[in-house]
């Protein structure tokens, strides 16, 4: 019965993890892959894989949040996705943000264009910089969490994010062709 009680606790914890981070995993996958269809595949595989290894991950986490571990699974699956199919992220996201963002009417057109430029700029960044920005801004992860997800030090992560923002800033300054 003890094993069953353990199993019940693990399942309860996994259900909580799933409920709390389904949107995070999906958002990460979507912004990495660039379309809803494949983002759904990555999200599905992430949770199925997470479920299989959840017990061990929980034991090894020593009480630390498991979101970085979950995002790392999605990160690896997304990397395989590109490796297997020799694809790159689509520059044209399906613009979830642009569509849903609320603006005053007079700013609408200009604002939308600005956000599209930002999304396009993000999609053109090197992989590690793009991922760090997605984790920071779409998922609201702090440096420590991002460092764990990317298997880097906190210092290196801070530098990575700073450089990503600087590069994006420079690309936004370039005149439109």
């Amino acid at each position, binding site marked *: 019965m003890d094993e069953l009680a353990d199993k019940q606790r693990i399942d309860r914890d996994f259900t909580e993890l799933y409920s709390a981070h389904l949107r995070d995993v999906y958002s990460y996958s979507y912004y990495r892959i660039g379309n809803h269809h494949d983002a759904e595949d990555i999200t599905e595989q992430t949770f199925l894989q997470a479920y299989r290894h959840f017990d061990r991950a929980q034991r090894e986490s020593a009480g630390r949040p498991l979101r970085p571990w979950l995002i790392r699974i999605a990160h690896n699956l997304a990397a395989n996705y590109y490796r297997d199919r020799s694809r790159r992220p689509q520059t044209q996201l399906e613009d979830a943000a642009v569509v849903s963002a609320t603006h005053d009417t007079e700013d609408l057109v200009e604002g939308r264009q600005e956000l599209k430029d930002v999304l396009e700029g993000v999609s053109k960044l090197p992989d590690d910089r793009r991922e760090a920005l997605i984790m920071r801004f779409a998922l609201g992860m702090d440096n420590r969490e991002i460092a764990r997800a990317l298997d880097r030090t906190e210092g290196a992560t801070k530098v990575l994010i700073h450089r990503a923002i*600087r590069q994006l800033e420079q690309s936004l300054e370039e005149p439109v062709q």
Partner: protein
Amino acid sequence: MTPVHDVESLLRSALVPVEPSEALSDRLERGLSELTDAAVEELADWELSAMRDPRNWGRPAAAVVVGGTAAGALVLVRARQQHKRRHVSGLKALERSLRDVTEDLQRRLG
């Protein structure tokens, strides 16, 4: 030149969290249900007669572990389905699901 804080503000506006569709939740639930079905089949294949040979004792034990794992998947699925149907709190749905799975496992394992 666009200041860094403006770029950060733009990033916050552009990279908003994206809600997954109901279809994705359903697919995920189906995937977890398949794990459950596979484990139940594994258990059903092992009749009591197989237990007379000590060489086989390891395998049903492994199946019990798989069954337990699959039961967990079922907890998740049932909790969501019950939540959808009855609009009860997640905790109550989970408790009910855990009870169902426990009884189910005990019945199957004799």
